């Protein structure tokens, strides 16, 4: 129980620090007492909103995987946009759309949310609904209706990183 409390304090302090960092970068205000007041206000906000269940504990391995994940996500976003541009420009739009079902192994809610958002931003896929561990995905160019193969093609690339970060 003691450890739990320390963890939740750590989460709150780090969220407040991130919010203060946002304020600092936005205003370039160097005044230390101003920053202290902002940190206090941010800490009150973090007190109301954050529990330990939502965020996993920060370890170096998870941090490294998060950085790699962000790079991977940007690569996928750029690929997605070239794909969309190719489709939109052509006089006869080459689409073969459909809604497929995939399954995720992630357990934590925030991990599933990040997975759904990432799927929305990557080539030709848009997450429509989520029921339990089943994600329903609108795919602009359906190549496999089968659940296993679709899972392999859409989810597996992200899950590899997210499982480490939120597992």
């Amino acid at each position, binding site marked *: 129980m003691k450890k739990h409390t320390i963890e939740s304090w750590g989460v709150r302090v780090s969220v407040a620090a991130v919010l203060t960092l946002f304020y600092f970068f936005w205003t370039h205000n160097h005044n230390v007492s101003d920053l202290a007041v902002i940190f206090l206000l941010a800490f009150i906000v973090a007190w109301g909103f954050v529990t330990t269940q939502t965020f996993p504990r920060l370890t170096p391995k998870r941090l490294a995987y998060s950085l790699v994940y962000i790079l991977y996500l940007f690569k996928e976003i750029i690929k997605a946009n070239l794909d*969309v541009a190719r489709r939109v420009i052509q006089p006869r739009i080459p*689409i073969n759309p459909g809604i497929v079902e995939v399954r995720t192994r992630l357990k934590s809610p925030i991990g599933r949310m990040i997975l759904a958002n990432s799927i929305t931003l990557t080539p*030709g896929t848009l997450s429509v609904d989520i029921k339990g561990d089943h994600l329903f995905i609108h795919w602009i160019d359906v190549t496999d209706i089968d659940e296993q193969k679709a899972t392999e093609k859409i989810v597996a690339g992200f899950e590899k990183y997210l499982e480490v970060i939120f597992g």
Partner: protein
Amino acid sequence: MAIRELLGSIIALIGSLFLFLGALGIVRMPDLYNRMQTGTKSTTLGTILTLLGIGIYRLEWLPQMLILIAFILATNPVSSHTLARAAHFTGIPLTRKTVADKLAEEEHRPIPVEEEEEVV
């Protein structure tokens, strides 16, 4: 100095082209879900590239641009996701080219397919 400004402006130009393609996509695509695909993806990358280009062009604005990029990256997929779910729930028709709809099968509803293909 000049090279940096040129680089930033070119990145902003590419971003604005993606924004334009996104707008073109929502006009040309045949049904709501495909429109949402182009709308979300192109506008996200377009805004990111535009803001990044302006951040490179005017280097003292770069931190604020990064904060804006973070907010856009977090909020933009959420709204499209909610809208797609609502649209499917109310039975907005899919285009005739659609090959499968597992969500309608799961909920034991008929697959909503539009009667006539829209001529673009």
